[in-house]
């Protein structure tokens, strides 16, 4: 499930602005909003993750430097803006005082140029002076009363230029930081995906036989996405948040330690509140996820079994069950929504408390003359900026945990045991005749559970071997061993006298053509699919192979013939036609040996006849191993391997086996012709 980037950008869009008064919406980090998954081994996983980032360490240092620089500039600006306001305020006070003084003086009074307030105030009766606060009085004394004071725009201009510079640089650095980090995280993500994909092709089949494809697939997509998102956002977030918290505290202290203490008193409170809420909500998130899983399970099951549900009059029962689960889901869903949504009002409230504290204490201090109004303004900005990094640091632990959990799964996959190396093996069979010798083969998928016990058979070139047995008897085991998808535990399989384990796997597989019941074709043209085993095949060869496989006829009837692109599910051709294509594919590969599964499912009678003929063509002159479903094939086989419960219980030709009157005979008598799927 790939998260739609559109929604993500909308979410981040809402998260970004920090300087607005009560916090912007949705400040909570993504991990706080969801169930937090815990990794098994946090530190080991993190170490590995860091080693993935190593090649980019120079870039990452740059990212940190720019992130810190950008944050520092961003933190510096409110103080300067405050100073700018201070300038306005003090000029304004001068102006007001001047007006007040002038109003007292007689209209005819002339002030000589250069007269200061000190000189002027000498004439004012002391009773009058006492009414003016001392701080203002000090200022008045140095004021030039010959001209009416104005707001000093010349000085303000400097502030503006300084601020513009800071803002632009901060934005620029922030962008550069983001630009580099995106590059790094995308490259790491790319590397992750690539490693996983390469790993897929190096893992033994054992691994996949035990797991669903969905599991592996979700590592390539979901888990890698989670890690990538953290790299992209959280990594810089940690740096900027910490820089911001430290920087803001420092800036606050340079303005007023009293106000700093007032606004910081509440920080531990918000930390605790957030932590408590995250913890509390986990329970409901878990419950919500469970109910959602149960609900989705019920939906899938009922929709898939719709007919059965209907015809057994299960409609009412199904709806009742659904409503029960749905109600359960509702009760945990609204609680988790509510709790995770609490973060914002609480942070806003704590922020507002800070705001009130700053206004009151600031106002009081301003009266005392310790600080100025611009300082209050700067402080308010700082208090507002404080919220975001605090929420972020509070949820970083959770972000890290879910990241580690995802990364752990990826690493676990990458650390899986691979097929054994085989660089030193260099035996190549040229012009193999196709003699296969099973020499005392012992095998079990699980070494503790041996299923093939001491099996020997000597197969001469060109012979036909039928593998038979009831459903689930393990007929594909022989295929797995021949192709070295699995290796034998004891004994050996020899081709033309050479132990297959002394050859590279690729060399062994080159000797076999394979047509399985599961007709795997890929999203490409018919031509490409036939030439899959021999990518450099000419068009003539491809057509010849198709003709021999009786596929040429139907291919010509298709809209673009050989150029028709098979769609994703390859359902623009029928099952039988697919089967013919896989035969053509094997035909073109021209191998001395062949592995065939005769089973044909959902194929109409006429196509079935075509497939039979095509297989007959394919087997001509080759040593063939056939998972047999047709009596004629079995009867005509040079050797029949009878399998039951994973083991080869009998071998011989039809007559011999019947005479034995054992398992084969009972099977034969109960007629196992019918093509039941393995």
């Amino acid at each position, binding site marked *: 499930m790939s998260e739609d980037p559109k929604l993500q950008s909308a979410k981040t869009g809402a998260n970004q602005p920090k300087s607005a008064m009560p916090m912007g919406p949705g400040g909570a980090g993504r991990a706080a909003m969801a169930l937090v998954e815990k990794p098994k081994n946090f530190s080991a996983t993190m170490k590995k993750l860091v080693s993935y980032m190593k090649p980019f360490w120079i870039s990452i240092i740059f990212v940190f430097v720019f992130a810190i620089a950008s944050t520092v500039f961003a933190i510096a600006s409110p103080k300067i803006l405050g100073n700018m*306001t201070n300038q306005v305020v003090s000029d304004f006070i001068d102006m007001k005082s001047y007006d007040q003084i002038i109003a007292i003086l007689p209209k005819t009074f002339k002030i000589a140029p250069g007269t200061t307030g000190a000189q002027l105030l000498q004439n004012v009766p002391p009773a009058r002076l006492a009414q003016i606060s001392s701080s203002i009085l000090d200022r008045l004394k140095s004021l030039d009363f010959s001209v009416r004071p104005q*707001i000093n725009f010349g000085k303000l201009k400097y502030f503006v230029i300084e601020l513009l510079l800071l803002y632009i640089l901060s934005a620029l650095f922030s962008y550069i930081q983001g630009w580099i980090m995106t590059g790094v995280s995308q490259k790491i993500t790319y590397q992750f995906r690539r490693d996983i994909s390469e790993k897929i092709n190096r893992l033994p089949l054992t691994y996949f036989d035990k797991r669903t494809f969905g599991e592996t697939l979700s590592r390539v997509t979901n888990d890698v996405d989670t890690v990538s998102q953290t790299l992209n956002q959280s990594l810089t977030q940690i740096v900027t948040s910490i820089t911001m918290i430290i920087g803001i505290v420092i800036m606050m202290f340079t303005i007023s330690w009293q106000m700093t203490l007032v606004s910081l008193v509440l920080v531990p409170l918000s930390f605790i509140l957030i932590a408590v809420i995250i913890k509390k909500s986990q329970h409901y998130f878990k419950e919500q996820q469970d109910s959602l899983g149960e609900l989705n399970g019920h939906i899938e099951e009922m929709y898939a079994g719709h007919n059965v549900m209907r015809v057994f009059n299960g409609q009412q029962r199904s709806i009742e069950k659904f409503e029960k689960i*749905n*109600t359960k889901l509702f009760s945990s869903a609204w609680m988790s929504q509510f709790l995770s949504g609490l973060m*914002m009002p609480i942070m806003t409230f704590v922020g507002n408390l800070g705001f009130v504290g700053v206004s009151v204490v*600031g106002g009081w201090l301003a009266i005392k003359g310790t600080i100025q109004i611009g300082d209050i303004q700067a402080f308010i900005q700082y208090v507002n900026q404080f919220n975001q990094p605090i929420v972020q640091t509070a949820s970083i632990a959770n972000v890290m945990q879910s990241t580690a959990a995802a990364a752990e799964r990826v690493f676990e996959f990458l650390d899986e045991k691979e097929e054994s190396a085989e660089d030193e093996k260099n035996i190549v069979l040229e012009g193999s005749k196709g003699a296969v010798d099973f020499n005392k083969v012992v095998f079990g998928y699980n070494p503790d559970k041996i299923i093939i016990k001491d099996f020997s058979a000597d197969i001469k070139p060109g012979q036909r071997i039928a593998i038979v047995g009831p459903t689930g008897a393990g007929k594909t085991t022989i295929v797995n061993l021949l192709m070295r998808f699995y290796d034998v535990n004891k004994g050996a399989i020899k081709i033309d006298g050479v132990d297959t384990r002394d050859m590279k796997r690729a060399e062994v597989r080159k000797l076999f053509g394979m047509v399985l019941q599961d007709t795997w074709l890929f999203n490409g043209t018919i031509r490409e699919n036939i030439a899959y085993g021999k990518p450099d095949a000419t068009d003539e060869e491809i057509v010849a192979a198709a003709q021999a496989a009786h596929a040429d006829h139907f291919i010509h009837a298709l809209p673009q013939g050989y150029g028709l692109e098979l769609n994703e599910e390859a359902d623009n051709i029928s099952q039988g036609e697919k089967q013919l294509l896989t035969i053509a594919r094997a035909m073109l590969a021209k191998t001395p040996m062949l592995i065939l599964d005769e089973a044909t499912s959902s194929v109409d009678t006429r196509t079935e006849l075509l497939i039979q003929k095509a297989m007959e063509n394919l087997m001509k002159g080759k040593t063939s191993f056939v998972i047999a479903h047709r009596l004629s094939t079995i009867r005509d086989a040079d050797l029949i391997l009878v399998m039951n419960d994973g083991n080869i219980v009998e071998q011989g030709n039809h007559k011999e086996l019947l005479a034995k009157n054992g398992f084969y005979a009972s099977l034969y008598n109960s007629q196992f012709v019918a093509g039941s799927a393995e």
Partner: protein
Amino acid sequence: MLKLFKYLKPYTLQMIALIALVFGTVAATLELPDYMAAIINDGIAKSDTGLIFHNGLLMLLIALGGAVCTVGVGFLASKIATGFSRDIRNKVFSRVESFSLVEINKFSTASLITRSTNDIQQIQTVMVLLLRMVLQAPIMGIWAIFKAYHLASSLSWIIALAVAILLGIIFVMFAVALPKFKILQKLVDRLNLVTRENLTGLRVIRAFNNEKLEQAKFEKANVDLTATNLFVNRLMVVMQPVMMLILNLTSVLIVWMGAGLINSGNLEIGNMIAFIQYAMQIIMSFLMISIVFIMVPRASVSAERINEVIDTEPIIKDSKNPISAKNFHGGVVEFKNVTFCYPGADTPVLENISFKASPGETTAFIGSTGSGKSTLINLIPRFYDVSSGEILLDGVDVRQYKLEDLYAKIGFIPQKGVLFSGTVESNIKYGAPEASNSEVKKSAETSQAEEFINNLEGKFNAPIAEGGANVSGGQKQRLSIARAIVRKPEIYIFDDSFSALDFKTDAMLRQALKGETQNKTVLIVAQRISTILSAEKIIVLDDGKIAGVGIHQQLLKDCDVYREIAYSQLSEDELETYQIDVNREKAEIESKENPSLLAT
């Protein structure tokens, strides 16, 4: 999206309360700067400590009130949004449950699942966001504009300018990014496809030594995806710095322009600082509103898909004046000139089919894939309705029964043994919830399921996983059969239900069934000829038409299509000796393993 809002009706009161609380939140947020301005203008300037503390106390109360309102908003928003989605979920699910195969096929099962799960979840997420945050934006925006305008009308243009620039940038960015997002989605799909192909084709890929080729395919998909991702992400990284820049520049501009006003005596300092706060609120509100335009189109796609389901009326419903099934018994099935055409298709799948299946008889259908045999039996329980002609059940057109009564007459065994999560017992009892333990046991015995059930841990209470994933295909089929038997239906319909059984079990099962189905009508669709050899009536279908009716020997002689099928499965001498083999096998089973059956 709007269409779904009608389901908000039960929440009218809560919605009103929610809006009132939103007003409370907004009021609190916007009042605070006023008091702060008063502290600066009157408190500090006039050195009035009392006023400062008085206002401070008021601010505290307002902040607290605001917090209470916001929590209330969160509470109601969560309740409404999740309740709303719960209601829609119920609605969609019960609608789908009433669908016939016509509607199911129209949407496809996979699509219906997405519509009932992801799409509704999507709506819920959007609803929470809408109610909790977006609803506040216009109220906050308009209110703050009023206040700001009231404070300093001559500075208002700064806010207008900032909003215009911000929206302009967002618009341009999304105009550039949106097409890229679509490409991105395609590339993600491509990467998934390549990976999935690699996984499903593992054996073939290795057999042909084509690991390198697959690697190259993946590499290309990976490179393409990374490149586009890089572009889009680097574009999106612009957002935050630019937004911060705009907010900051707005503040500076306000102070600069404000200083001029202060100079001329038209503005007080406290008001200027309050004005900055308002400006921020207004810009944020517009940002929120712009998010709606990004979010809602996505949600409307989901909403539309949900509406499609809710608005679809099932074609097959109870008849308006149903005939009570009480008076009709027996289980005689009769097709009269039935022609059936899938909705939207021009060629009929079944053409002019007439036959009669009577109690005590087994009627079998055989034919190649696409001959219409499964379709034919699907018409009896009205998974589809006939296009012309009629199907009579005990002399009454199936369309005249109440659906429930119709289903009650039928024991249906699907091709793939469909099981539901629960226990073995709950699955068997699905056919007859009131069945007693001994009835459940007996039906398991008949369906040859008892032996493997007894080997399961917990026996009849052994858990069955979703879709029956923890039992084999053959076991599923046997449990499906038990489920039908326990129902004691008048008509049995087997849709190729023996395909996953080995012959021995198959034979034993059919033998045991004989006792159970003695006076019942049995309809069997089969692929294997061996399954139907002993049927009283075999109907051969070819291309939607009846190509022959009769018993095995007779059809072998007279019917070309039947012969072709027979010879593709059995050799000539086997066909002759077959009957003998079967009989011998049956005798063996009866004598050795199930002596009780000798009595029947």
